[in-house]
């Protein structure tokens, strides 16, 4: 099954420490562990902060554009990963091992609607 992991946390907190050129990013060990377990990493990325977010609505007659994320909450989506694995237990394990979860963040696990 395919799942999207939505990484949520407080933007104010220090994000993952910047890594030097010759150092590996903090998610690399996670990616290696997942690969070793047979969890396929389809895609994923960290996102720019919500100060760069734009919200768009279409009222039918006009397009409403606003600055900011769709909800002003303390916790924001910091990034995402799309994974392919056997079942929810595997996805929960993948989420629990992610650097965001290990550093006090929350990971929302959402199954992707299967395409026919």
């Amino acid at each position: 099954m395919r799942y999207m992991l939505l990484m949520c946390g407080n933007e104010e907190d220090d994000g993952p420490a910047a890594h030097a050129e010759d150092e590996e990013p903090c998610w690399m060990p996670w990616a290696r562990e997942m690969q070793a377990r047979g969890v396929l990493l389809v895609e994923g990325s960290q996102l720019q902060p919500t100060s760069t977010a734009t919200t768009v609505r279409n009222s039918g007659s006009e397009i409403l554009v606003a600055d900011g994320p769709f909800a002003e909450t303390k916790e924001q989506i910091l990034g995402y990963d799309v994974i392919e694995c056997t079942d929810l237990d595997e996805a929960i394990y993948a989420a629990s091992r992610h650097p965001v979860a290990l550093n006090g963040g929350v990971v929302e696990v959402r199954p992707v609607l299967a395409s026919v």
Partner: protein
Amino acid sequence: MTDAQAAVAEAFQQEWGKVVATLIRMTGDWDLAEECTQDAFTTALTRWASDGVPDRPGAWLTTTARNRALDRLRRSKTEAAKLQEVAVLSVPEEPAPWGDSGVTDDRLRLMFTCCHPALTLEARVALTLRTLAGLTTAEIARAFLVPEATMAKRLTRAKHKIRDAGIPYRVPPAHLLPERTNGVLGVLYLLFNEGYSASAGEDLLRPDLSAEAIRLGRLLAQLMPDEPEAAGLLALMLLQDARSAARLDDAGDLVSLEDQERSRWDGARIAEGIRLLEAALRRQRAGPYQLQAAIAACHAEAASSGDTDWAQIALLYGELHRIVPSAVIELNRAVAVAMADGFEAGLALVDELAASGQLTGYYLLPATRADLLRRMERHAEAAASYREALELAPTDPERRYLARRLAEVAG
């Protein structure tokens, strides 16, 4: 009741969960599994009356339900149904071997899936009662005092989540097993307490949740013979349930353990609980349920309140607190210490807990304090604590009990 009807009723008790569990494994479809199992029991009513009761009612019911599922999948012309049909035809009726402990009973898979932590606690309880115990949606709704439509929605939502989120239908692998087993034990104990604390006779149609919890507890202990906590939970439920007849007086008021008429305790249940507990403890892996059962056993074995081994109970509460730290356990330990080492010592522990602020708003804190002060004949202070407890007590029987005690010390 005719012989056939009696046989079907008996089979329902024995086989419902097993047939549903097998059908879910074969079809992967919870609704289809439930409906076809229901159909199989309905068919049994007429067929067993005309042809006689089959030698193996469970196998007969499983085959009938399976054939019914195949019929329905064949009649449905969708692509998904065709795939499902192929799947059902390729799956054996007997479950596949699992690990080194032999064959996994499908009911164990079902139990773990129903109690998956990705479902809400309410959904876990409702799903367990519906699929494993075979209670109807209406019965479960009555048990939890919610409208039937609310319960139906809760069950549907849970089944959809299992399907759409990919909750696996299996006994968890070794690294998840301890945690998930705790989850299953927790659901069964919640079910037991839900039934135990509901006042008797308030609604005659309310199903007996404690009895269902004990039935499921027996099943779990039988399916997980290597898990001493499963036996521990069953022992705990039996030992508590053994006292149920003596817990309320004729007016429906609570009778404290001390004042209960011990001759009304169920001796057979106590003996069974203690036998199970002793066997579990021999495995040397005491967990919270075995310890609580051991405490219940100390009470059950005492011929009178005065004969209770309070020092042992205080030790057990101390051990329990070490494994699962909780202020409520500390409060219970304080009572045991008061009875073993003297009221002063117990009161000091209660006051320490009160000062920590962890139990603020919990009525048993002032109620316990009041009780100790009453025994110490410090009536004025006892009365003040009883009044405080009265303000916080959640139910009428508890308030009546406290008011009675207050009258004693204030009078």
